């Protein structure tokens, strides 16, 4: 039972709140000899694995460090280009550190606004009349629960597939939003939620769920 994260999206599709609760860190460090038996590519300002998936190394993983030196973009922090280091036979054996790319805030905003049309199309393509948008979305690694309030605000929670009772949790988050964000005179609607009370109450609620389960709230 794990809660991965919470997103709150405003009526117009903008991300107004995001909290990563437990994000598993997926990283692996391995020694490689010449020639490299994986294919790397440079895309979206990241050097990532294109081919050569194996234990601990997944297609899409990003190169974090070469011989312990961190990588930013396509450059090592000591100024050398990643591609040059990797192609040069004399540098081997090399220790490369790969990991699942972490989402930046910009990417999260992008994803939140991407969910908005998906939600709308799902209700438009419905074979039954008067369908709502997406309420539960399941993939092989997680489950996303979405609750749309009457005013159009969406609360999304990403949980482990085995988690039950997420609906209760969604309502509870909405209650906290109503109590601590909306009643805060310094909070303006549709703007990102920066209310300390909301943050602390949400965190303590999640901790309680971690400890005693959903039934305790």
């Amino acid at each position, binding site marked *: 039972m794990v809660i991965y994260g919470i997103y709150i999206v405003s009526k117009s599709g903008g991300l107004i709140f995001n909290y990563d609760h437990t994000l598993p860190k*997926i990283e692996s460090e391995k020694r490689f000899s010449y020639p490299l038996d994986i294919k790397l590519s440079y895309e979206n300002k990241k050097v990532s694995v294109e081919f050569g998936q194996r234990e601990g190394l997944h297609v899409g993983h990003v190169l974090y460090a070469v011989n312990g030196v961190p990588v930013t973009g396509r450059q090592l922090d000591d100024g050398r280009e990643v591609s040059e280091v990797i192609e040069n036979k004399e540098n081997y054996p090399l220790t490369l550190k790969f990991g699942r790319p972490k989402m930046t805030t910009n990417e999260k905003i992008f994803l939140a606004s991407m969910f908005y049309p998906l939600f709308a199309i799902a209700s438009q*393509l419905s*074979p*039954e009349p008067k*369908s709502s948008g*997406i309420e539960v979305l399941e*993939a092989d*690694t997680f489950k996303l629960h979405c609750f749309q309030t009457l005013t159009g605000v969406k609360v999304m929670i990403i949980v482990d597939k085995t988690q039950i009772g997420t609906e209760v949790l969604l309502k509870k988050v909405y209650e906290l939003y109503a109590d601590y964000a909306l009643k805060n005179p310094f909070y303006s609607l549709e703007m990102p939620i920066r209310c300390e009370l909301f943050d602390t109450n949400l965190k303590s609620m999640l901790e309680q769920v971690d400890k005693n389960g959903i039934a305790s709230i």
Partner: protein
Amino acid sequence: MTVHNIYIFDKQGSLLFYQEWNRLKNSGMTREEEAKLMYGMLFSLKSFVNKISPLDTKEGFLYYKTSKYTLHYLETPSGLKFVLNTDNHSQGVRDLLHQIYKEIFVEYVVKNPLCSLNEPIQSELFKTKLDAYIKQSSVYLTKSM
């Protein structure tokens, strides 16, 4: 429990096959437009799921549920996409989709030399076999209104 409709897309995103059983609402557009919208949504869902997933995904998107229906999705490694809409109480639809691919699509489309793989499926045999297969499955039971 009931089955609403099925869409089959190829890897380029063109609609190979569509059939409906109990569809109560039409989207108000032509079939081609609807198929494009559906494919676009699936494509975005796939990328959305891969990005937002906290762990490395293997199969990725499996299904989504609204208040009225559930959309089940199966993608084969060759890029064929099977989409089946059912009501919210259906069980084991993923297995059914696998079976449709294995026992109906491969048998009556891939093994039929007159069926071109990148064009909409015209075969009557495929259509009747699929219809019969869906109708005898446990997921298909006409809702008593």
